[in-house]
């Protein structure tokens, strides 16, 4: 039980009267890479946004690395220090240079000296192959470059868990590959990753488990191999048929 880094039990969430998440149970082991997929509106983004408390929920419990997620500023802060998130629309801070985007959290949250923070930032920028852009502003970069910066920014917190919320769906087709390459490279680190994505090739390659969601609930959970070859539920069969037909 204790090797679960994320434990979600009986999670229910409503937007007004709309039941978005229904009885979600999900355990993620340390170092595991989970891909969450499903049709749009199925609640997959909402689910991972609950994990770092960007969304509140009404019923159930989420425990992240032994910290129960409750309405307590200190606990939310503690969880956010361990969980990093990469967004669909990058959400870089446009008024700061790339370097300042990366050093913001280390200097203000971890109170790291400026010099050390800069070194750390350059290390991760190098890792995502974008060190030469450090002094530019986000709007001067292409979408793929911005998303790689966003990944580097979340790495700067040295998070135990990384959440990816459709990181490639706002990108031009030519730029998807460069971001996926970085993510595949990251997957080798042994860090826990939860990715909401439609990139089935990526899922096949790196996922330990694939979760299929529809209409607010988990419909099927399978190994990548069986997920594509022997899907069990009819809903998943239909989904795969539709996305693989072209």
């Amino acid at each position, binding site marked *: 039980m204790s090797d679960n880094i994320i434990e979600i039990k009986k999670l229910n969430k409503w937007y007004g009267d709309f039941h978005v998440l229904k009885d979600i149970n999900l355990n993620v082991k340390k170092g595991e890479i989970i891909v969450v997929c499903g049709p749009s509106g199925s609640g997959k983004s909402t689910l991972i946004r609950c994990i*770092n*408390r*960007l969304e509140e929920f009404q019923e159930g419990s989420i425990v992240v690395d032994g910290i129960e997620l409750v309405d307590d500023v200190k606990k939310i*802060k503690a969880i*956010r*220090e361990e*969980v*990093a*998130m990469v*967004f669909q*629309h990058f*959400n*870089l*801070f*446009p*008024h*700061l240079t790339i370097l300042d985007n990366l050093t*913001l*959290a280390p200097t*203000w*949250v971890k109170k790291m000296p400026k010099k050390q923070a800069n070194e750390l930032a350059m290390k991760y920028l190098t890792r995502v192959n974008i060190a030469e852009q450090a002094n530019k*502003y*986000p*709007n*001067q970069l292409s979408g793929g470059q911005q998303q790689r910066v966003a990944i580097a*920014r*979340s790495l700067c*917190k040295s998070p135990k868990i990384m959440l990816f919320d459709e990181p490639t769906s706002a990108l031009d087709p030519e730029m998807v590959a460069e971001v996926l390459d970085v993510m595949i490279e990251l997957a080798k680190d042994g860090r826990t990753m939860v990715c909401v994505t439609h990139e089935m090739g990526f899922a096949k390659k790196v996922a330990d488990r694939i979760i299929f969601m529809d209409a607010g609930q988990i419909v099927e959970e399978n190994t990548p191999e069986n997920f594509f070859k022997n899907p069990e539920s009819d809903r998943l069969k239909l989904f795969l048929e539709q996305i693989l037909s072209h």
Partner: protein
Amino acid sequence: MAVYSKVEQRRAPSNTKGILHWLRDNLFSTPLNVALTALGIAILFWVIPPFVKWAYTDANFAGSTREDCSGGGACWVFVRMKIDMFMYGFYPSAERWRINTVYGFFFIMMVLFKYLKSASLKILLAHVYFIVGYFLVSGGFFGLEHVPTDKWGGLMLTIVVAAVGIVAAFPLGVILALGRASHLPIIRSISVTYIEFIRGVPLITILFMSSIILPLFFPEGVTFDKLLRALIGIAMFEAAYIAENIRGGLQSIPKGQYEAADAIGLSYWQKMGLVILPQALKVAIPNLVGVSIALFQDTTLVMIIGLFDLLAMVRLSAADSYWLGYETEGYVFVTFIFWFFCYSMSNFSQKLEKRFNTNLR
């Protein structure tokens, strides 16, 4: 099917550039525009020559008495003889160097601002400037004669009221804007009530309240400087408008910015101070400068509570029986001064926008 070879870049054709092309495009593109251009030129011909004739050709500049105004045009002698009144009000002549020193410090500070990198150092410098400026102008220490605020006047008072009004209103405005955007119902309703109340009342009313009604609530014998009361009133008034402009800026910031700031673990104040406000203020610059320009002009209202700002000094001087009949010159002069300050602020705003523009391509 076909394959196409690469096309090299070349310059835009030269007949799309140049002054003639600009004239044709902007002034004479359609018959209506030709007519409007002609009308515009006619109006300029009708207005400018008489004004130049009055203000320059037929005007008198030299001399020191009424008798020197013989040209039939403007008599700038009046402005020249009264300029000290316009600039310093009743501030004692022997002490006016103190005000000039504060002006001088301002330019030194502006030069330093150009070369200083650290924002916190700039803020510290500005605070020191305001404190030093206050002690220099007010006096009462180090052998400097104390000059009570009822002797302050003219352009110097206008600047004091505008500068203190804007600077003091700004932090309050930021807090009110954040309060209005807050999720906490009590804080939000206090902010909304304050803003809507103040915005529903004219500045004149607030000035009257602060100068006449407020003292009624003080215990007997307690007096409270009239200028300070007016400044507090103005700062409270401006804060509501500044808050609304900043709120406009806050609403233009996408939700993703808040989420990203939350996700990297910033606290509420860090999120607001480091991520949201810098962007919101940037968006609000044109409106904030608009408020500042409006306030600079509104300072003339302090006349009605017995403070003598630039406009009031001109009125007073024009009522001097020796110089009767020269108020036009005085008002033209005031117009020019106000235009100069407002135009400078407007220019400054455009510089700021350029400087903070990170939306580069």
